[in-house]
């Protein structure tokens, strides 16, 4: 297997699906001639040309809505949002149209569309450009929301998302595009709705998704030094959520920490923590902890912005609280 970056794994997924199905097309700001703001769409304009790869004006509401319309009558658009911060301009089309059309047409219409782009904190960008906005999307029935933390999953999940007949929001991460990992030569899919145990363990369950998973794996190594064997679950799919995988693990370890870079209030992480408290109540040996970002807009100053986000130290501390260990 070849070492591939997340950026290239996503690129392969787009390329393969565009080659496989001529209904798949791609649009967004700078996706064509510039090869993508983060180079995920590199080479695709050259290979497929317009109108299968389209550079849009800066008009998120317009081009996102256009794609929703195209999806209802037979095309399979992939919309690149340069970042999720700018998707806020388009969110009306996602929530009021894409997520609703099937239900309010009594099942007559489908919206097979993928909305993708970097979400979550980056560096030195201050508060309008460094936000983890997934909870806004996960809140909405009718949408699927998925993520990844490895190149393997990135490729397999994007391919499944493109083949899915529903609107799928794919959470990427600017800071993770250059992470590398093994991606097989042969074609494969990763199903939506399935969590993955990234590290098996027996003493405590650490549950996360997207970029923080890599940091959580470091936490597990850290805990191992104190003799704690942590299991790390990468949820991958936020909606639909693989609840069975979570409960199975927690019923084994009796302890759970949820790590989510969202803000804490009414967030996806707080929802998962609640589900565990409710459904594993009898087997839990301690409270469920949530390590989120601090409840503040992201500051520009680098020391501050690092401290706003979940860190190894914060997660280790939460794990030790749950394990009743000395800090």
């Amino acid at each position, binding site marked *: 297997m070849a070492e591939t970056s997340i950026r290239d794994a996503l690129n392969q997924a787009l390329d393969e699906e565009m080659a496989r199905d001529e209904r798949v097309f791609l649009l967004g700001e700078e996706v064509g001639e510039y090869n993508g703001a983060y180079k995920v769409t590199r080479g695709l304009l050259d290979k497929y040309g317009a109108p299968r790869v389209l550079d849009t004006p800066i008009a998120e509401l317009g081009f996102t809505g256009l794609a929703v319309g195209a999806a209802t009558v037979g095309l399979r658009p992939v919309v690149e949002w340069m970042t999720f911060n700018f998707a806020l301009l388009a969110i009306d089309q996602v929530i009021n149209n894409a997520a609703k059309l099937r239900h309010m047409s009594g099942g007559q219409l489908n919206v097979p569309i993928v909305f993708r782009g970097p979400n979550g904190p980056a560096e*030195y960008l201050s508060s309008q*450009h460094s936000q983890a906005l997934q909870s806004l999307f996960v809140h909405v029935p009718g949408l699927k929301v998925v993520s990844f933390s490895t190149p393997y999953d990135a490729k397999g999940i994007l391919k499944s998302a493109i083949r899915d007949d529903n609107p799928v929001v794919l959470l990427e991460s600017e800071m993770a595009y250059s992470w590398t990992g093994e991606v097989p030569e042969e074609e494969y899919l990763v199903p939506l709705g399935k969590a993955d145990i990234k590290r098996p363990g027996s003493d405590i369950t650490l549950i996360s998704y997207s970029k923080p998973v890599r940091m959580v794996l470091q936490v597990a190594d850290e805990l191992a030094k104190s003799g704690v064997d942590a299991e790390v679950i990468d949820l991958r799919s936020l909606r639909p959520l693989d609840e069975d995988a979570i409960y199975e693990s927690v019923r084994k370890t009796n302890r759970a920490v949820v790590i989510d870079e969202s803000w804490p209030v009414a967030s996806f992480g707080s929802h998962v923590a609640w589900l565990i408290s409710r459904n594993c109540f009898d087997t839990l040996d301690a409270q469920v902890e949530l390590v989120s970002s601090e409840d503040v807009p992201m500051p520009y100053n680098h020391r501050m912005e690092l401290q706003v986000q979940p860190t190894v130290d914060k997660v280790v501390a939460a794990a030790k609280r749950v394990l009743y260990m000395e800090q």
Partner: protein
Amino acid sequence: MARERTEAVNESPGKKVSTEPNQVVGVGGYDKKFLLPLLRKMVLIRRFEEKAAQMYGVRKIGGFCHLYNGQEAVAVGSIAALDLTTDYVLTAYRDHGHAIACGMEPRPIMAELFGKVTGSSRGKGGSMHMFDAEKHFLGGNGIVGAQIPMATGVAFTQMYRRKVMGEKAGGVTLCYFGDGAIHQGAFHESLNLASVWKLPAIYIVENNQFGMGTAVKRVSAVEDFAVKATAFDMPGMTLDGMNVLAVYEGIKKAAGLARKDETPVLVDIKTYRYKGHSMSDPAKYRTRDEVESYQEQDPILILKKLMIDAKMLSDAEYKKLDDEVKVIVQDSVDFAESSDQPPLESMYEDIYA
């Protein structure tokens, strides 16, 4: 093209704007007392941006840093036409130049770029978010087009204060945005509101020909944006953004219309950015020749030459001015460098009033 002489555009009956602003000949009858500060401000912005780029290179500054080199005449010429005791300014993320033109000192701007506690936003805003509420400079916005409705609201307040609260001095609001931003719904919604409610807003397209790597013509049905004014029944103008005097006169006129005739105005100012979109953009989408041809039209060189030709300035005097400016810019770096990091707890401050 930025170098074409400017012309008036609006065909909408009764709202025509004359071509006068563009007929600035030479120094246009202005005296040295008026011209020298314009030159000095443009040089200050240029030197400040060069220093910012250098500091970015040594990682004192991070993230997105959008430089204003080449566009100095737009902010300096237009803001010179304002009275910032009553008027307001809002812009996007390419905001260091507007901040300086509004009278912000280089020190708090550089310190903000360094993320220091002495920065204008106490290290929380960074390059894209300069603010000085006292000087009526309301940012510094990172979301393309987001300042346009906001500026419309500021202009609304100016109308409201006059009509409801009996205030005499009706100010105007200058709202800057790029040729890329003009395609946002926010632009179209705002201009209609401003026209219907007769708001004293001046919408300035800083038409530097590119939105990131995208040339105007690839994503816009029209290349000259002043025609869009017609759809909102407001005056439209086109100005030469490389000539600070053309910008000054044009905006002076627009501000006069906004104050007196209670109408918003749309102004397309043709300009050019010398650097990449931000520090991370190698700008491969345009040729060196193209950039150089604009640099020959440099707004600083143009004014300098006009002043020298009019015997208002000597090369030695210019050099002295430039040296003084360099000292001021270096001082801002020293200030930023020696300032403290903001305390971590300050992340929880300034969230609620």
